């Protein structure tokens, strides 16, 4: 189509009108609602809900734009939620920007720059570098250092950490801490004051900002990869759009966007090692570092899989490093254990509790974070899940007496209570709502004449008549905290 036909000109006008419509409504939204940046603030304990506690912890609790913009970094570093299942490796965060950057070093006239203007490649390359730097600043300012005892050191505590830790004790931690210090200064000095003028816990700028950032990276990517044939370009643009929807809508939960990872891995490999790999000093440095990182990833990945450590019990785990398979599973696969043996090895006393629970399939079970659905007959019809203790909170707001609460539950058909002792560990809200509710729930269980404990894997120390023994129990001098308890309502 010739460039200056009336139709073509009209199309260009429509393109500009589209941009104007978008900008106009973004500005309108800002002027109408932009002042209410404290909206959606943390609810009072009485109003807090399970979704906020469970889902939003993945996104974080920083100033709103930073929650989204720092997601790529936070996801890889697991800054907001640390669980092994969320660990996607470090390769992509390092080499996606590098893969984009290297393409801008090609000589003018050769792919990918093609017939680009001379200023375009350096400008876009600079944009990539600045973006990485900005990402580093906003992410580390809200991240943490793990000290030698695996305790979290927040960025505001870094000075104290550096004062108390020598380089020899923790070379990696100290190096990172110095960088964190500088990034925090930049964040607090330059970034945060600007953001706080327009944003807070809520705002009218984050969505338009995200679209703008997306448009910027769309432009960068489209210039970088425009030499690719149609199918690959289609895949690339699919990946862009998919990444945006996932990061915007999924609160940063990895398995909701799992598709992004093989796609980005494939892209990074094809750029760094494929036919389009960059030349020159930077290209060679990038390629060798990439291969080195891949090699390191393989070594640490296999060590990680073979050792299969559980950090929460590491200090007391006598078989730490040997759990390539669980001991009970190994003995099951070799024919030494029956299914019952496996259940009891994992959850002492569970078999006895299940024999009671599964004699019938009508009684109701009040479940607080417990994981025994799989073992319980008709569990879909019987188990009332209150993992965030929302419902319990409603009950005890009105009924303060534990006997009253127990009677209420019993009258409605509840016969069993299951609690997971790790329930409060998922609470990353500043208000610690779940922690408070959990304490009140445990008070319900404590010395409640209406309840009988059926099973627990917590070990307590009991002294009677001068003799000390260790028994399974919930309240007392805890020797092994265990993970669960099952109670029957008498």
């Amino acid at each position, binding site marked *: 189509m010739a460039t200056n036909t009336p139709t073509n000109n009209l199309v260009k006008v429509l393109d500009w009108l*589209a941009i104007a419509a978008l900008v106009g409504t973004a500005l309108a939204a800002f002027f109408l609602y932009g002042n209410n940046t404290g909206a959606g603030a943390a609810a009072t304990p009485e109003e807090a809900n399970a979704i906020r506690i469970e889902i939003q912890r993945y996104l974080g609790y920083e100033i709103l734009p930073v929650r989204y913009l720092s997601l790529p970094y936070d996801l890889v570093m697991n800054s907001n939620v640390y669980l092994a299942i969320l660990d996607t490796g470090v390769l992509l965060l390092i080499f996606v920007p590098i893969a984009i950057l290297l393409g801008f070093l090609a000589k003018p006239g050769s792919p990918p720059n093609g017939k680009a203007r001379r200023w375009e490649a350096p400008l876009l390359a600079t944009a990539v570098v600045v973006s990485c730097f900005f990402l580093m600043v906003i992410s580390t300012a809200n991240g943490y250092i793990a000290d030698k005892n695996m305790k979290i050191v927040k960025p505001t505590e870094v000075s104290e950490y550096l004062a108390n830790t020598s380089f020899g004790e923790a070379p990696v931690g100290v190096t990172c801490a110095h960088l964190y210090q500088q990034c925090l200064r930049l964040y607090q000095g330059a970034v945060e004051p600007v953001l706080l003028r327009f944003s807070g816990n809520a705002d009218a700028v984050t969505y338009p900002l995200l679209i703008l950032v997306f448009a910027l990276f769309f432009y960068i990517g489209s210039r970088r990869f425009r030499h690719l044939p149609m199918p690959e370009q289609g895949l690339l643009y699919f990946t862009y759009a998919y990444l945006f929807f996932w990061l915007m809508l999924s609160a940063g939960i990895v398995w909701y966007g799992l598709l992004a990872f093989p796609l980005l891995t494939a892209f990074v490999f094809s750029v760094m090692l494929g036919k389009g790999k960059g030349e020159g000093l930077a290209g060679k440095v990038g390629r060798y570092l990439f291969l080195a990182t891949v090699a390191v990833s393989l070594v640490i990945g296999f060590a990680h899989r073979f050792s299969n450590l559980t950090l929460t019990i590491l200090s007391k785990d006598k078989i730490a490093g040997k759990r390539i398979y669980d001991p009970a599973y190994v003995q099951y696969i070799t024919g030494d254990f029956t299914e019952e043996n496996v259940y009891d090895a994992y959850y002492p006393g569970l078999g006895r509790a299940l024999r009671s629970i599964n004699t019938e399939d009508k009684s109701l079970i009040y479940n607080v974070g417990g994981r025994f659905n799989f073992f319980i007959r008709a569990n879909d019809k019987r188990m009332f899940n209150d993992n965030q203790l929302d419902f319990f909170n409603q009950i005890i707001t009105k009924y303060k007496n534990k006997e009253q609460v127990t009677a209420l539950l019993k009258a409605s058909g509840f016969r069993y209570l299951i609690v997971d002792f790790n329930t409060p560990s998922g609470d990353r809200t500043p208000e610690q709502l779940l922690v408070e509710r959990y304490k009140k729930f445990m008070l319900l269980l404590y010395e409640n004449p209406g309840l009988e404990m059926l099973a627990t894997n917590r070990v307590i120390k009991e002294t009677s008549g001068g003799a000390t023994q260790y028994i399974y129990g919930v309240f007392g001098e805890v020797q092994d905290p265990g993970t669960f308890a099952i109670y029957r309502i008498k």
Partner: protein
Amino acid sequence: MRIIPQVLTALFIVLWTLFVFLDYWQKHPSYYLSFTYYQYWGLGLVLLSIGAAVSWLGMKFGQDKQRKFFFNGLSVTALFLLVSMVSVGAAFNALVPSASFNAVRGVKVLLQVGGTAMAVYLVTIASYVLGSLINEFLKVKLSAAMDASLAAIATGMMGLVLGCFLLGTVSLLHGFVLYPCLIVLFFFGRKKALGFLKATLWQPLATDRQLNWVGLGSFYLLVVLLSINFTAVNVPMPAGFDSLTVYANIPSLIGGRHGLVEGYQPYNWSILMSLGYVLFGSTAVSLALSNLGGVLAAFAMYALCRNWLRLDANYSLLAVLVFSLTPSVTIQSSAELKIDLGLLFISLSILLVLLHFLKYSAGEEGGTAPKPVPAKAAAAKKGQAAPTGYAGNIFQASPAIVWMGLMSGFALGIKLTTIYFALALLVALWYGYHGKRGFWAMFLASLFLVLLVKLDDFGGLRQFHLGADVLQWGLLAAALLLFLGAFLSNRPHFQQSIKLSIVYGMFALFTFVPWAAKNYWETRSLSPAALMNGKSAAPAINLQTLENNMPNNGN
């Protein structure tokens, strides 16, 4: 002067790599602790020795016409089982000091793991046969053999699940019903079944001439990893919280009830996993069917790297290994067994077909689509959006779109977050026809839809975005203006894009409708929430009902 940008860029690369890696390392103490506590030096040595031997044999005889016979699916399976037995043996000796791993135990391991593997293989071959028949009917033809096989397996899984869904609605999900159905299936698809058996078991593996130590080593390590993860699921109960409460629980309930379970969001992959109980009465097989998703996803990723990103075989295998080794994948393959890896496989299969579709639409090769109008073929060579020249019945012209729609609906029935995938796929389609204008038009339209139906309220996030109700109208206006621009730029393309988008959406809904129907039956409500979630069978208890149930009404 060109050296300066090279040096600066190299410096940035080094610093960025160092900083990010160090920060990652200090935030993931489990990695260096894995070395501190590492116990399996002997096992590592044995496996490395086996790997060196396998790689050497592969290099020496891989291209030998007579000896390459030994490099087939059966030998890979033997290697898989060998790794399983060796690793269990090492673990047994380390964890059970009172006993020793002997031949009897070794045989039991082989029987247990081998039996589960055979069960999973049966489901896979049934999927392949059924899927091939369906794809023939739909006229979906893919030029790359691996792409075609994976698409067939994906289609077959959809067919199997739909069949089980229908049987489940009338509580007929029994082995004595399914086994005869499978026998009939294998009878009608016997040629395909034999072809699959031949290709996967005794036909020599197609070894690339360029395969080197990197490729062979990566392949071997992949077999080791997949074997260890697969062995870990041969257990009577899953270990992870989500598996115990939802993803292994639902198949168990289905298997016990021989029918569908009330409530829950759509659970297509759980129905597939329930075959472990229905056909084999085995928790291990059920869990292995979750693990299968990861294995098939690895194949799909390899096909993507090899056939579409033109990465050589060695680096393709290395890429798959690197991805498969990430903790998020290994944990979902061995301990926290969910449906995400199954969804990943289906999504990757859809993308393989999308790539075929985009390639055909650019007119680079023949296939199911008619050749493009010659006058515009030149534009196709520049990698730009090119006309398709489709004519006649839309369903004849776009079997790939119909297939992608069906599979996307199936994927939506695995997990509702497939909505991102579907929107992104439409965006890619519109890019294929209209370039960047099409991309932005559909992208902004999708965003409008997201805000309109408050999809961003997942996790309670909408409350933080003030003015979203206003912004959405700007998105709509911008999208419509861009659509108008696309229409004016190229009317035939626009009409084609609209038709294909509608076809895609219709067929996606088609495979999702059974879930909507099931949920409507449970709730008698047409609200979106009711159609998505059904009626939970969990006790409907609130404070009021607690008080009402009290004698003397809570006084």
